[in-house]
C-alpha cells in the first residue's frame, strides 16, 4: 500500500505545477519521490497579473519540495500553443491556507 504518487506516467512530459504560495511553474518532469518532491527541467514561471499579460520567467533546472506543491497538471502542448498568453489577464492564484 506504500505506493508513492502516481507521477510515473508524467515523467518526461511537460507539466504545470501550482505551488502552495500560488505560483505556476511549467517544466519537464524528470523525477519525483514518495513525498512528491519533484525535479523539473527547462522550467519557467508564469506570472499572471491583471495589468499586463502573462510574464514568463526562465528558471532552468529546479527541485520543488513536495510540502509546497498543490497541483501537478499534465500540460497539453496543443492547447497551450493555442493560448494567447500576452493578452491573458488574471488575478494571481491565492496562497493555500490550511
Amino acid at each position, binding site marked *: 500500500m506504500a505506493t508513492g504518487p*502516481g507521477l510515473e506516467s508524467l515523467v518526461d512530459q511537460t507539466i504545470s505545477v501550482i505551488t502552495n504560495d500560488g505560483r505556476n511553474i511549467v517544466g519537464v518532469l524528470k523525477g519525483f519521490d514518495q513525498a512528491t518532491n519533484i525535479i523539473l527541467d527547462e522550467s519557467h514561471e508564469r506570472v499572471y497579473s491583471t495589468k499586463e499579460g502573462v510574464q514568463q520567467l526562465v528558471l532552468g533546472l529546479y527541485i520543488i519540495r513536495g510540502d509546497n506543491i498543490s497541483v501537478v497538471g*499534465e500540460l*497539453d502542448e496543443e*492547447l497551450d500553443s493555442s493560448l494567447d498568453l500576452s493578452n491573458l489577464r488574471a488575478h494571481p492564484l491565492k*496562497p493555500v491556507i490550511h
Partner: protein
Amino acid sequence: MPKKPRTPSTTQFSDQILIATKPRKLHLLLVRRIIVLFFSYFKDLVGREVTVELKNDLAIRGTLHSVDQYLNIKLENTRVVDQDKYPHMLSVRNCFIRGSVVRYVQLPPDGVDIELLHDATRREARGG
C-alpha cells in the same frame, strides 16, 4: 550534562508522562483508521465525476482516476470550475492533486450511500 539517577521518585514522574501521552497515541491510530476508510471509499468512487475544492479556493472538476494512501487525487478530463477567474490551468486536462491541499471533494448526490458511510464511520469511531 550528567544524567539524573533513576530513583523511585523520578520513575513515578515518567510513568505519569506516559499515561498523559497515551490518549494522543490512540487518537492518531483512530485518525489513521478513518483515513484508510476514506481511501477504500474513494477507491470505490473511481470513474465518477467529482469536483475537488482546494485550500487556495481553486475548484477542479473531473473524473476520478485514482487515489492513494495519502488521499492524493488524480483527475482526468479536468476543467477548472470558474475558468475566467482561474485561467491558470486552461491547457491542463489531467492532473494530480496533493491530498494535503484538498478542502472538499464534492460528490454526485447519487454516488453516496450515506447510511453505509455513516455506519462505517460510527463503527471505526467506536473501535469496532
